[in-house]
């Protein structure tokens, strides 16, 4: 274990510089360089030990920060890997741009995870968000991409403004930008108002219902490897911010947010699951199912306890593998069939049995079925909520799981029950296959042996309360 507070951030910065230089000289190896760099940084993050706070308490490298940084880096590594050798021409031509933007956003997340000061927090938040708008509109000649990008940008800016506005109240009420001081400050209406406004803004970022409308369009229009990453990493960043601002160090006052989180969780699960039902485009389906997944994580938030927080962290890990994997399989099928419709999956089990099995595992994981990661994730958040006596929320969540299984099973039905239109195998590039394999390993490993990650999550979440 090594203790180096800024190692990862500096590493990403250096990587960006290297990508830039190599990109200027010649395009080819940029993707490989960035991917390899992020893999190395992921390995470094796994060896990292907490090193306390720095910069006068603005920046903290505690267990929570390291936990989520590992999640960000792992997600980014898989996302970048899957994009290697993509036949997408825009990606190939503007590879440097793509990787630089993605790394910039990653840098924002890494800083965000450690930010213990409102100004740094907001700065990191924007560093994370702005590249996302650009990347969503990466296929700039397609009107859908531009529309989605603009929508995302407008909604995102407004939510950033709302967060900034809320945080200004917080500063006004407490006279400090340090989150440590804010947590200790006496409760006041102004402080609550500020935090509520910031919560609404953050709900946009994690795409909770009814702040979700940018999600489906953005997912449909963006380049698939990016979308796979977009669907998980920024969400994790949003949750860390929530923990930092609303839970860390406030003690019993964390329970104040439980009803709001419970309400948000209920409508998000309901909205996401119900809107996913009529979807026929798998990317949109996954977008809405992703919204529902956020709802399940908010169930853990409603518990407002150390175990609830830990279970969200575990959920995020499970979600990274399950959701990214599902998006990557969609990408593989879409490349081969030229369509993202559910019908493109018809008979996949007979054409490419392994790809179909991977997709089935991801869907089951998202659906919360035993022996894959998602089951434990759902179970643990429900558990945390039950501990707090929120049985009604658990029941709502559990019943909506059944709704979710309906649309997941529709994809499974296409793959396994319906006959294929043609028998040829679906071609998969080695990089994509490898990244799908990584996701499968993650989903199965966590499904069989969740204990290590759960314990780690509990360890890092307990000091918050």
């Amino acid at each position, binding site marked *: 274990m090594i203790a180096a507070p800024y190692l990862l951030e500096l590493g990403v910065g250096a990587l960006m510089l290297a990508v830039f230089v190599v990109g200027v000289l010649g395009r080819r190896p940029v993707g490989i360089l960035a991917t390899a760099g992020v893999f190395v940084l992921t390995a470094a993050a796994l060896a990292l030990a907490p090193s306390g706070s720095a910069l006068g308490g603005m920046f903290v490298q505690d267990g929570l920060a390291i936990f989520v940084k590992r999640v960000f880096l792992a997600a980014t590594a898989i996302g970048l890997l899957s994009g290697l050798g993509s036949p997408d021409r825009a990606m190939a031509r503007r590879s440097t741009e793509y990787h630089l933007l993605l790394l910039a956003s990653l840098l924002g997340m890494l800083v965000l995870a450690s930010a213990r000061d409102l100004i740094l927090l907001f700065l990191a938040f924007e560093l994370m968000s702005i590249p996302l708008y650009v990347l969503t509109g990466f296929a700039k000649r397609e009107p859908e991409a531009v529309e989605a990008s603009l929508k995302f940008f407008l909604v995102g800016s407004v939510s950033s403004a709302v967060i900034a506005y809320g945080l200004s109240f917080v500063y006004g009420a407490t006279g400090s930008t340090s989150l440590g001081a804010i947590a200790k400050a006496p409760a006041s209406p102004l402080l609550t108002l500020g935090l509520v406004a910031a919560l609404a803004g953050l709900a946009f970022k994690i795409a909770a219902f009814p702040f979700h409308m940018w999600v489906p369009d953005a997912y449909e229009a963006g380049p698939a490897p990016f979308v796979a990453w977009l669907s998980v990493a920024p969400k994790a960043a949003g949750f860390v911010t929530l923990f930092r601002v609303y839970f860390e160090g406030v003690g019993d006052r964390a329970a104040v947010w439980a009803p709001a989180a419970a309400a948000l969780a209920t409508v998000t699960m309901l909205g996401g699951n119900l809107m996913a039902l009529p979807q026929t485009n798998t990317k949109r389906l996954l977008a809405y199912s992703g919204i529902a997944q956020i709802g399940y994580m908010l169930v853990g938030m409603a518990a407002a306890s150390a175990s609830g927080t830990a279970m969200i962290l575990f959920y995020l890990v499970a979600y990274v593998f399950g959701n990214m994997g599902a998006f990557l399989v969609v990408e593989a099928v879409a490349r081969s069939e030229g369509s993202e419709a559910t019908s493109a999956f018809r008979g996949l089990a007979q054409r490419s049995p392994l790809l179909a099995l991977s997709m089935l595992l991801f869907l*089951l994981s998202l659906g919360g*079925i*035993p*022996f894959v990661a998602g089951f434990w994730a759902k*179970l643990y958040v*429900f*558990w945390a909520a*039950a*501990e707090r*006596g929120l*049985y009604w929320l*658990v*029941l709502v969540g*559990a*019943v909506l*799981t*059944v709704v979710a*299984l*309906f649309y997941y*099973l529709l994809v*499974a*039905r296409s793959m*396994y*029950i319906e006959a294929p239109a043609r028998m040829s195998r679906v071609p998969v590039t080695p990089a994509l296959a490898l990244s799908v394999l990584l996701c499968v390993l993650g989903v199965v490993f966590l499904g069989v042996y969740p*204990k290590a990650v759960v314990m780690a999550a509990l360890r890092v979440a307990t000091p918050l309360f």
Partner: protein
Amino acid sequence: MRVPILSLIAWMPFVGALLIMFTARRSPLAVRLIAAITTGISTVLSLWVYAAYDRDAALTTGFQFYEKLALVPPLGINYELGVDGISILMVLLTSIIIFAGVFASWTVATRSQEFYALLLALVTGVYGVFVSLDMFVFFLFYELAVLPMYLLIGIWGSSGEVRPRGIFAWAYRETGVGSKEYAAMKLTLYLLFGSAFILVGIFALYVAAGTASFSFLDLEAASFDPALQRWVFLAFYVGFGILAGIWPLHTWSPDGHASAPTAVSMLHAGVLMKLGAYGVVRVGMGLLPSGATELAWLVGGIACINVVYGALSAMAQVDLKYVIAYSSVSHMGLVMLGAATLTEAGLNGSVFQMFAHGVMTGLFFALVGLVYEKAHSREIFRMGGFGRVMPGIATAFTIAGLSSLGLPGTSGFVAEILTFMGAWRSDHRWWLVPAVAGTFLTAVYVLRVAKQIFWGPPSPHFHHLEDARGPEWVALVILVGVLVLFGFLPGVALVPVDTATVPLLSRILQP
């Protein structure tokens, strides 16, 4: 070290499934042999457990063949197995049905490797539910028993050939009612909907007991607040009851059973529905005695509706498989009714009925599968006179039918008479009326079907049909034999069952 015999029984089919997936890719015969051998081992072991179960010590020792292995110690999750008089009978039933089922579906041609692998994985789930004493592991096995069903019905099932008319025709076009895909989805969603309730119930007990243990034994020792007991019992009743086919949540069952391939219908109607009833008795009544007493009127009342409604629905069907499927709904009503009486006779009758009906309906579905395979029809009034060309199948069908309507000398009779006695001794004597009426109606629809298909005038279209062959005989002989054997010697089953129901009742009736 003692041999973990229950684990062997439960996991043997799973080993078979793995072997089939990895070794028998090109050989259909090897697939079947592996399936037959692994389920055969489980069957032999469960017979041995049944014989070796210590009936005299059972009242004092509780669960036998106990195994325990810590899985997640901080959360109190253990891999904890054990059997009592009720569960050994259920394990035996599972073994009989799956062993017969492997032979009855010997002729599955398409993708048979995956079919058998899924079927065997599912059986592991069923065994697991019956033997696990840890509520959490119980739940895991429960899910394992439900999920493969989706693919089994969706891929290998058959869509109903009798198209609905009138307003139902419109509903058919809109939703695909009656098609196998519809049935598979409906069944899966209904059962998972049920499991959501079960999960909440388990959590509630875990939190309320405060012992940080999911063990059935620890939860049994804890005492719960009556208000909590009431709603948790209701949650378990709804959750498990859906699987047991309680009215009005039974509608997945006729569709599912009618659309499923033979072995799956056998297993589902024969064993999985019992799993629901077993859950209500073991978990609901066992852990929540006062909740069970308070809500017995509801359980019994709904069961009465089940009995009569199921029988009337069966009378109205023209598709042979639907007749049998609805008869399951009706008989599951008797199972639940027996349990709701909260009397020794009723509870014994209920458990015995689970067994008797499991074997009987397994036999029915095996026969329907054979008839369909030979005549390519399930429509009752298009068939006739099969008794001449397939005497073996006809005889077996008649025996199953007689057991179904409770003829003395078959195990159906023992189960029904016990249930009636229980109903008479319970607080709600009027339950006897629908129960007996149900038996009468059963006679009407069973005899009608038997007469039309097997004993009516022979039809010239069906002269070329053959009787059951080779492996299929194995299935029929086993099932008919068990049905008759337990009819004449009910004590073989009732003695061990009694060792489990008496302590259960004493817990329920003495608060």
